[in-house]
């Protein structure tokens, strides 16, 4: 699994190179991001590539959210594609995770 990681100050931008996050790869993604969480608790998940997300993908996001929160940080999402956004809203994830239009907005949100 290829996950691109970019660091801007204290913020880590994580960009999975996946068209779809489903039960076939969510576990690996969860583990991968979970390992990053304690060291980089300020995390932006850039979902630009991801055109499909299922319930196990949701589970992975919530797992990472739990870990970054425990480490004193937070998780923010950006560049969410329409089908993924529809799912996030259906489970009301947008009420507990901030979703930004663009990457810069997400990174800047820590400055305020």
């Amino acid at each position: 699994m290829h996950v691109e990681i970019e660091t801007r100050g204290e913020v880590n931008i994580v960009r999975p190179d996946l068209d779809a996050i489903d039960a076939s790869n969510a576990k690996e993604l969860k583990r991968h991001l979970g390992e990053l969480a304690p060291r980089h608790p300020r995390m932006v998940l850039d979902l630009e590539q991801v055109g499909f997300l299922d319930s196990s993908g949701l589970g992975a996001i919530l797992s990472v959210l739990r870990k970054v929160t425990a480490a004193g940080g937070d998780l923010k999402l950006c560049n969410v594609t329409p089908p993924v956004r529809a799912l996030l809203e259906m489970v009301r994830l947008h009420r507990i995770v901030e979703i930004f239009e663009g990457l810069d907005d997400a990174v800047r949100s820590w400055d305020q």
Partner: protein
Amino acid sequence: MGTVTARRTPHLVGIAGASGSGKTTLAHALARSLGDAAVVSLDAYYRDLGHLDQAARERSNFDSPEAFDWDRCVADLRALQCGQTVQRPTYDFTTHTSRPETEPVEPRPFLIVEGLLVLHHPDVRALLDTMVFLEVDNQTALDRRIARDRRERGRDPDAVRAQFARDVQPMFERYVQPTARWATLALAGTDPVETSVGRLSAHLATTAVALLTDSEARFRLLVGSANDGIYRITPDGIFTFSNRTASAIMDRPETPLIGLSFVRFVRPDWRRKVMRFYRWQIKNHTQTTYLEFPAVTFEGRAIWLGQNTQLEEMDGEVSGLHAIARDITVQRDAADALGEARRREIEAASEIQQTFLHGHAPHGMPDITIGSVALASQDIDGDFFDFLCLRERVLDVVIGDVMGKGIPAALLGAATKSHFVRAAGLLTSREGRLPSVSRLVGKVHAELVGQLRELESFVTLVYARFDLTARTLTLVDCGHSRTLHWHVDTGRCTFLSGENLPLGFVQRATYVERTCDYRSGDVFVLYSDGVTEARSPDGILFGEQRLQAVVERSARQHPGALAEGVQAAVARFSGATTPADDLTCLVLQMDRRTERFALATDVTFHSDLAELDRMRVYVRAACMQVPAVDEDWAEELVLAANETMSNIICHAYYCKAGRTIGLSVTTEPDTLVVRFTHTGERYRPRSTTKPSLPDLTEFPESGFGLYLIDQLVHETRYEVMPDQETSAVTLVKRYHRQSEER
């Protein structure tokens, strides 16, 4: 050594190591063991010091590379390798001068070159097939040197000791030790010579010689070519040998790859794939493989390598991999660029067609369902079609083909199409009623004939008018492919054709129309000659009969699926994915509302989560065949299907591989039905109440699946089939009422 087969060109073995490491002893013992072998000592190539006095000669540094006549040495080894006998010099170690007499050395299947600095000179290394380095501790080396120099060269032990400290040891560290990295085999100089000979023979048998015996020519070709990198890798991926070209490919010709990890040179996103490939080769004992993969050099430059890899086996165990690699970046780039250019050309062509030549099927028209496929060939033939709704419950369809190819044909096609649209609008508004089909075609002909004749072109077309109230089809056929009419009551096809000439063929033309009735459920297929005139690789025409067979077999499918089925049948027949001619196929199904259609039937998946992706493709494709369904709606059904199949894999099959899951997608009026079948555990949701959304503030990592399915579809059914083995999970989602329910 019965396993070693010698070849016509000699195999050169170099043995290097410290003075006193046992090179000469090993070389001669190996020669005896191999039988037909000659030994060449590098010591014979010391430079003549006759111009110096004896004291100066004694002070000379005999352990430095400058002490040797490399040019002569390389020339002799080359000659031997080419099968020539050479006269090697002889050297007097007492006087440090060359003797006048020379000694003949004949080429043998094996030539063993031994000496302190045998691995020092790149030109010598390039000639060596096998490189050995003998390791030894200082004390052993000194003791052996004293004994030898006294015995063979009549020299005093103290002088030998002094020379050892002054020259031998520092020079060893400076010049000899660094050459150990080139060795394909390292041996201990303190081992009994029989042990060393045994190991060296085994190495010869399994490495170079084994490589050669079956395919000497290929090996020669590959090793000889300056473009190829050659290296040996251990089964766990560490370089133990590499030639200069291999290092040069990686941007550092002077840095051997030995000791480095192979995988560090593979582009990161390919590492898993490449490692899996070679693990597979080792596991299956596949003797030779070829793989192309992207690599990154020392300097971070991205390249492509084509790598031939041969297994080295010892007693049935894989002991290493021999690889011959070539930098294929240029070829790859060229192939990619060519592919890209061709792709853009086709894209441009089909964009022209979609923008100017292809009309859009009217959505949501009652009592008629339309499916279409339009593929551009690389040449653009100027196929065009359009749909005109001039009056309620009347649909006009025009489909045509311009003679000629390329942009002129495309423009003429676009012009013809717009003439029809304009003429139909004009005549309707001027006369207050629909113009007859024949009148409309006649008017367009009159407007276009001048231009067409000037361009020496003509247009074949069918203009068809479906009256949905009277259930009649009226058409004018101007030399176009014959319209196919499938009858629901007989299940058979008839062809409708006219006697009219193509537009632009003659100056004055009158057009004759014909009318036929149809029944609810009948199907009409209008198409371009790209369908019927497609040819198999043997030159056989696809023809009307094959088209008729496809339609009669699949006419009860959704029109979109039928159109795609026709296209797929043509592609299979012609063996080409891009048609030679433009291919257009319009399918019109009359009054299909009471019918039930299969959009995807009996697709089988493995009980593997990696199959989810393929399943989603099927469900999306099925949704796209239903015009009333939009993308958002389709994605909801796809997600529900995804959750259901995940559940089947995890709860019915407990994630065990090797089982199967069936899928079918059907459409009924206003509804899409996705049905999965499996033969695993009869899982079903425990509670009969509606699943609720897990509390997100608890960070739940599961429990969303059933909630989502419930939200996304209108109905979920769990059933056991009459065979008592198969279970079915059915998802029902309605589309016409979606807006009021949301």
